[in-house]
């Protein structure tokens, strides 16, 4: 079992719901402080979004943030160097599109991630059918592969995804890309289907934008991922304080 999963199972056994905020690496010069503020406010793990020019799974907020980060010169090398300066020690989970790793080289990418303290990866455009090379490369680096399950995933596939997932299984709450949403979505149903075939920790993401939605999600899931709503705070000019307040409000709501 990869260390991320050991860690997150242990977390679950304490009864605490996992709160996983998402950051776009390199979005602002002080983005590392934002991460630290989130941890300070009670984040259990952090998703590090590695910006890609063509983020097919992302809505306008994260697209815009990724573009800004790229324009600021963010690269896999630069952001990994910055991650080394982090003063906290929660698990870091890289989230990006496959081309970033493919182009950088799979061995080289996983080595880089490991040496930067990253212990998991979400690659939304890499389905299990195409993932074997990546899984081989990540195995030797103790990087957990987190797969997403969608409301549209049929039962057979769902079993396979849940079984392949390491660290946690990502339950997508709705058929949509990242971004705000007011409806409650189908997270509950997805989580229940995963539970039926696997006991891996299961977190709900995609469209969780208010503390209320997070609380509702945690009634059934083991945690939540909060992306666009937080990125929006930073795009609006929010600093580490604002991040801390934002994460705190979610923390309170799910505890």
């Amino acid at each position: 079992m990869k260390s991320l999963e050991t860690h997150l199972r242990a977390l679950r056994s304490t009864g605490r719901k996992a709160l996983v905020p998402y950051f776009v690496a390199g979005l602002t010069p002080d983005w590392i402080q934002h991460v630290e503020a989130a941890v300070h406010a009670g984040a259990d793990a952090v998703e590090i979004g590695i910006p890609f020019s063509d983020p097919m799974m992302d809505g306008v907020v994260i697209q815009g943030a990724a573009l800004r980060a790229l324009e600021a010169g963010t690269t896999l090398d630069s952001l990994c160097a910055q991650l080394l300066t982090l003063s906290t020690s929660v698990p870091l989970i890289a989230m990006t599109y496959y081309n970033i790793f493919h182009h950088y080289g799979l061995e080289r990418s996983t080595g880089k991630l490991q040496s930067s303290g990253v212990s998991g990866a979400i690659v939304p455009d890499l389905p299990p059918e195409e993932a074997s090379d990546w899984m081989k490369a990540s195995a030797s680096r103790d990087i957990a592969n987190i797969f997403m399950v969608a409301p549209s995933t049929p039962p057979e596939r769902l079993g396979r995804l849940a079984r392949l997932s390491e660290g946690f299984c990502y339950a997508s709450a709705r058929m949509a890309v990242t971004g705000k949403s007011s409806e409650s979505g189908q997270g509950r149903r997805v989580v229940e289907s995963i539970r039926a075939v696997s006991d891996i920790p299961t977190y709900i993401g995609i469209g969780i934008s208010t503390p209320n939605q997070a609380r509702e999600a945690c009634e059934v899931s083991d945690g939540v991922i909060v992306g666009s709503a937080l990125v929006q705070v930073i795009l609006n000019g929010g600093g580490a304080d604002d991040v801390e307040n934002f994460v705190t409000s979610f923390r309170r709501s799910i505890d």
Partner: protein
Amino acid sequence: MLFRSERNEVSDSHTFMSAPDERGHFGDFGGRFVPEALMPACLELETAFIDAWRDPSFTTEYRQVLREFAGRPTPVTPLDRLSEQLGIRIFAKREDLAHTGSHKINNVVGQTLLTKRMGKHRVIAETGAGQHGVATATASARLGLECTVYMGEIDTERQALNVFRMELLGATVVPVTSGSRTLKDAVNEAMREWVTCVDDTHYCLGSVMGPHPFPWMVREMQSIIGIEAAQQLKDLGVENLDMVVACVGGGSNAAGVFAGFANAPTRLVGIEAAGGSAVGKGSPGVLHGMKSLLMQDEFGQIEEAYSISAGLDYPGIGPEHAYLARSGRAEYFAIGDSDVIHALQVLSLSEGIIPALETAHAVAWLLQEAGKEIPLGSTVLLNLSGRGDKDVAQVREILRGQR
């Protein structure tokens, strides 16, 4: 149709342009790199396509609509005056005469029929200059399907008339404001949108790109070009065709015409725009659901293409072309913007056919390479993928600027 009931590893069987492997690979390229939310739709589509393509009632209707509605077969025209000028014998496959003015209609006729067969009542599509968008809106109108077309905001401004044309045909055109606001981003946006409506909506992709089964399916639906042309050349008494030349954006017209000659001793030549040359300047990568050759920087960020012709303004290429290039079966060359206008003028003046700017790339290569890459006396088939009517305003501006 090139459908093979047994799908082999292409490289094993040593035949080209048969079906890809089960996961949609052409050698090292292809596959299906999409978010989980789209996987079921891709799988459903694959099954539906295989089923339909084997069903004579489907293929019969498909061919009937191509014949009665889209104007197939398109003719093969001997280009006598140009042939004489260049010292090679040139025939043109006239996709410019197909309904809506390019080969794009072949594909959308097939995909809209498939949409209905799958019980869906809506299609979405991406478009660059608007050719695929107009074709999709056209085929949708004919069947009464709802149609939404994603188009980069910059392209909606550059091609305002095509936007209006789509609207006349009942389609909704959505300007895409993300990224470079051109074709690449329109594809991203269409994919994002598809995630939200896979249940009742088919994504009608416009070229031999995207996740499996699109590259294969679109090639199959375009292979009618090559199949017709092979027969027509025989009827014209041409026994040995030395070369087929086609322009390449995503690569659908090229794939369609190549398909008729893939296992013949005919050179297959694809012509890219120099500013969108995925084979010439690209490296393997993953974008828009496929592994293929892409123009990208040292960190794998996709580069923006630039071409005078919106239809070739794409940083990638279909995965089967990547395979054909790497295996050596097909060759790819690039033509710069400056040679394209001249080629358009030469074909117009010598043959009375104003080609699309995309097509003019292939013409430019013929002008440049006759007597060099193309030995004098060769017999060449030019795939005349579309008409230039959509481009004349732009060409006029450019020529004015040059004066």
